[in-house]
């Protein structure tokens, strides 16, 4: 009965590429985490509502469509509205270096780009939850 890490993996907007996020879901499951998958074509509102109800430790948003600078500000505003500013937000997918810098400034805890080895994803998420402590 230990505390298990809960993750919501989400795909937002018109981006229909979910092979990557499904591989990540499987990787995290095999690392012993509970993974909720949102399915494709969600809005930021749907994703944040789900993340709050599921009370996940980590909200992971996968984007391959280039809309990160629109989506993440919305997500942070919504998290605040729902009183869960302490949720860890992680971005994944393909995005330019200058966006990565800006996303981190915005509050994204980590940006995991393409070619990230699976074990590195596991270690990163585990480390983030550990650093946050009990909640």
């Amino acid at each position, binding site marked *: *009965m230990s505390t298990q890490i809960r993750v919501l993996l989400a795909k937002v907007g018109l981006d229909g590429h979910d092979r990557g996020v499904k591989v990540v879901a499987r990787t995290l499951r*095999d690392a012993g985490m509970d993974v909720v998958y949102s399915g494709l074509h969600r809005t930021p509102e749907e994703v944040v509502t789900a993340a709050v109800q599921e009370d996940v430790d980590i909200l992971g948003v996968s984007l391959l469509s280039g809309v990160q600078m629109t989506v993440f500000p919305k997500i942070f505003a919504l998290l605040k509205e729902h009183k869960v500013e302490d949720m860890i937000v992680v971005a994944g997918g393909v995005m330019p270096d200058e966006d990565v810098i800006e996303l981190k400034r915005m509050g994204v805890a980590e940006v995991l780009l393409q070619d990230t080895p699976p074990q590195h994803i596991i270690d990163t998420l585990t480390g983030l939850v550990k650093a946050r402590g009990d909640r």
Partner: protein
Amino acid sequence: MARPYIPSLDLIEPAARGETWAVARLISRAEAGTPEVREAIGEIYRRAGKAHVVGITGVPGSGKSTMVSKLVRKLLDAGERVAVVAIDPSSPYSGGSILGDRIRMSDLVLDPNVFIRSMATRGAVGGMAHAALDVVDILDLAGFDRIIIETVGVGQDEVEIAKASHTTVVVSAPGLGDEIQAIKAGILEIADLHVVSKCDRSDANRTLTDLKTMLKDGLGSALTRGWLPPVIGTSSYDDQGFEELISGFGKHLAHLDGPAGAARREQISVFRLKKAAEALMLERLRRHPAFEPEGRRVAARQTDPYAAASGIVKQFSMEKPHV
């Protein structure tokens, strides 16, 4: 970013006001099963008891999630507040899980009167999750009128759900078996309401007939005496049968308010109590210091597993609990 740990007792009031973050956090704490949360769960239990708890079960692929999604939409349209606990299996190897029932309920998410929570079984049997009953109480406290527990798609004799819910719905799909399947013991016996899903399919009539015949032969609900479970055909595709299903809930609730209902409600409480006692006992028993030395003696064949286990249990039951 970080914020101080909020004690579980302090989450009760915001949860009772229906604040989603507090409800969700209490559920996580109940799932983790820390001793700290138990006092809060006790308080919540004493304040809960208003909601109608519906268990929905059936074999994998019978269309449970899709049906639940349609059903919840109808209940919301009728002005109810509805919570769904969707249970999916944990991996027996890693302990992890992929919880995907939400995907089929995605058009409900933004309705302010619905709350959906996914849970993993974490090794619990019978299609339920360990903390599911505590979760039901938390949702009840939060003011949901109807709480739907959707179990893992289970096999044939997993009946825990029936001992935990007021009304149990067993979903069968056409084409999964013949009339012999319908008269076997197990999951079909626990139904207060039978649903045959996918009734837009041509072979659905056969399944409906098989179930009705089985019930006429006297193989009805093993749990609610004096109640003949109706067989309701639904089609999530054609949007059929849901009014009948909801009116079936009403009839079963009215039945439970009669003398037969008292027995059912008592049975739920006894089950609950047994589960709580089992959890406490197991937690203590598993930590018992005699396992290692006795295990070595078993390995060396100086004793056998049964004799050693009975010795440990005897010793354990005489010790004072310090919980």
